[in-house]
C-alpha cells in the first residue's frame, strides 16, 4: 500500500484515458515514477503492467529514479545550437561534473536534455526547477550556479 499513489489513482480513475494524468500526478508528488507504482497503477486502472511500463518508458519526461535537488534542463535543439548551445552544453557538463541523463553524486543536480523550450528568440535556453532562462552564456550559467549552490 502506498497512500499517495492510491489517492492519485482514486482521484483520476473515473476520467477518460487517465494513465498520463495519473503518471503526471505521481511524478509531481514524488519527483519520479517509482517501480512499485507500476503494479499499483496497473491494478487501479485495470491495465496490464506491461502497458503502464510501456507508457512510463515511452515518454522522455517520466523519470524512473529520483532526481537531484535541482533539475537543469538544457535545450539541445537547432535554434540553441545556432547560438553556441553546444559550447554551453560542454560547459554545463563540466561545471556540474555530470553528463546528460545523470544526477550528481551529492544529489544536488540532475542534467536533462530537452528539445525546445519555446524560447528560441532568446537562445540558448534552459529551464531550472521550472524557471526559464534565456540567452544563457557560460558566464551567466556560472552566476546562476553560484546562487543554487548557496541554497542548502
Amino acid at each position, binding site marked *: 500500500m502506498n497512500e499517495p499513489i492510491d489517492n492519485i489513482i482514486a482521484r483520476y480513475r473515473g476520467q477518460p484515458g487517465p494513465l498520463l494524468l495519473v503518471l503526471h500526478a505521481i511524478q509531481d508528488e514524488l519527483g519520479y515514477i517509482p517501480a512499485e507504482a507500476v503494479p499499483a497503477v496497473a491494478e487501479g486502472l485495470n491495465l496490464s503492467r506491461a502497458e503502464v511500463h510501456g507508457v512510463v518508458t515511452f515518454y522522455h519526461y517520466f523519470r524512473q529514479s529520483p532526481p537531484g535537488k535541482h533539475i537543469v534542463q538544457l535545450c539541445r535543439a*537547432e535554434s540553441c545550437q545556432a547560438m553556441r548551445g553546444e559550447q554551453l552544453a560542454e560547459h554545463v557538463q563540466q561545471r556540474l561534473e555530470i553528463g546528460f541523463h545523470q544526477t550528481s553524486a551529492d544529489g544536488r543536480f540532475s542534467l536533462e536534455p530537452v528539445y525546445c523550450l519555446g524560447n528560441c528568440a532568446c537562445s540558448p535556453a534552459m529551464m531550472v526547477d521550472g524557471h526559464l532562462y534565456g540567452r544563457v552564456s557560460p558566464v551567466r550559467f556560472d552566476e546562476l550556479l553560484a546562487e543554487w549552490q548557496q541554497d542548502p
Partner: protein
Amino acid sequence: MSTVVYVSNDAAALSLGAEEVARAIAAQARAQGVEVVIKRNGSRGMFWLEPLVEVVTEGGRHAYGPVTVGNLPGLFAADFLHAGAHDLHLGPTEEIPYLKHQQRLTFARVGVIEPASLDDYLAHDGYRGLRRALTMSPAEIVRVVTESGLRGRGGAAFPTGIKWQTVLDASASEKYVTCNADEGDSGTFSDRMLMEGDPFVLIEGMTIAALAVGATQGYIYLRVEYPHAHRALNAAIALAYAAGYLGADVLGSGKRFDLEVRLGAGAYICGEETSMLESLEGRRGEVRVRPPLPAVKGLFGKPTIVNNVISLASVPIILDKGAIYYRDFGTGKSRGTLPVQLAGNLKRAGLVECAFGVSLRELLYDYAGGSASGRPLRTVQIGGPLGAYVPESQFDTALDYEALSNIGALLGHGGIVAFDDTVDMARMARYAMEFCANESCGKCTPCRIGSTRGVEVIDRIMHGMDRDQNLALLEDLCETMVQGSLCGLGGMAPFPVRSALKYFRDDFLKVRRP
C-alpha cells in the same frame, strides 16, 4: 493619478528578468511615493527589447527596453512614467517599425491586453466571433471557415473548413474538438506566446469549432515544457466557465462545451495528430495508420477535429469580420496571415505576423537585422527539425506554402532558425537523423531503424570512410524513409539531410580530425 505600467508576463520575457523588473518598479514607486498600477501582458514579440516596459500616457503607450533592474533609478529620474526622454525610450510602442509594419490579426491582442482578464478580452473585441457563430447554423459556420481559405497552421496546411465539414458530416453519439498545442519544432513559439498572451481567443476558437461540428468536449493537448502556458490556459478556462462561456449552456444557447487541458510528456512525435490522440487516450504515442482519418474515427474512436493552436485562434476573427476580410490577406492558395517566428542566430529575433508572400530576405534582414553574431548568414531551416535547409541564394523566395514547396522546402509551423557561416552542415544533417532516432515512436521500420543507420552512415561520410559508397547509401536510405514511413517524422527527417547534401556538400567532404 496613478500611472499604468505594462511589464510582460510571457515566459520568454520572464527568462530575461521581467519579473524582477516588475517588482523593482513597484518597490521604487512605493519608495518615491508615486502611484503605479503594474499590469502583466503577453509579449509584443520583440524579444531583443525584453524586458519591455510600457507606460500608458495621454499619447498612448510608450515603450522602454530592454530594461534591467539597474536601469530603473535612471528611468525614474528621467520621469519615464510620463514618457520622459531616456536612452531606452523607444517612443510609442505601436510606432516601432518592427511592429508597425506587421498585420496582426491572430495576434491582435497579444502583448496588448492582460491575458488573465476576461473583461480586457471583451473590451478588445473578444467573443464577438462566438456571438456571431451562435446566430448561425453549423453548416454556415463551416462554410465561412472554408471560404476564408484558412489552412492548418500546424504544418500540414490542410484546409481547416474541409476538415470541419468531414466531422460535421459524421454522425456519432459524441464528437471531440482537440487542439494540438504540442509545439515541438525548434524555432517555433507562436503557440506558446498566444496561449500565454491571449488564452481566451483559443478557447473562443475551440468553442466555435464545437458549435460547427456538434462536439461537446474539447481537449487542449499541451506540451509539458510550457508550464507558463499551462497556468494561463487553466486560469482562463476557469474564468470562462464562471462567466458562462464554457459549460452546460454556452451563453444561454443550450449548447454544452467542456474544455480541459491535458499535458504531454516530452515526446516530439505527439505533435503528429494520431500520436497525439493515442497520448490523449493515455497510451504510448504511437502513430495510427490512416485511414480512418481522425475526422471520421479520432479520439476514443469518435469523429474529432484536430487543429493547431494558431488555426483555432484565427477562427474568432474570421467569424467576427467575415471570410472575405481574412481571405483578402495573402497570396495564391495561401490566404490570411502567418505568425512567422524568427529564431536562432538573429539580431532581432521575434514574432512577425504578416500576410503570406513576404520574402525570406525581408524577414531576415529588414525585420531581424541579420545575424546576432555579426557574421554572414549562411542558411536557415524552415519548419522545424524536419524542415529543409535553405541557402542564402534562395532567400528571395516568398513565404507561402506553394513557393516554398517549389524549392523543395516547407513552411511547417512558420519557424525560421537562422545560422551564420560557422555552422557545420554535416553535423546538422547528422543531428536531424539523431533527433529522428531519439523521437521515433518505433512503429514503422524505415523511421525506427533508418534514422539510426542514417546517423552511422553520416558518421562514416564525415570520417572519410568509403565516402562515395556511403553517400549513395545515404541517398538510398533517405528515399526509403520518405517512401516507407508511416508519418511525417521518418518521412521528412530526410529533408534537412538532403538539402544539406545538395547545397552544402563540401561540409560533408572536408577532412576532419578523428
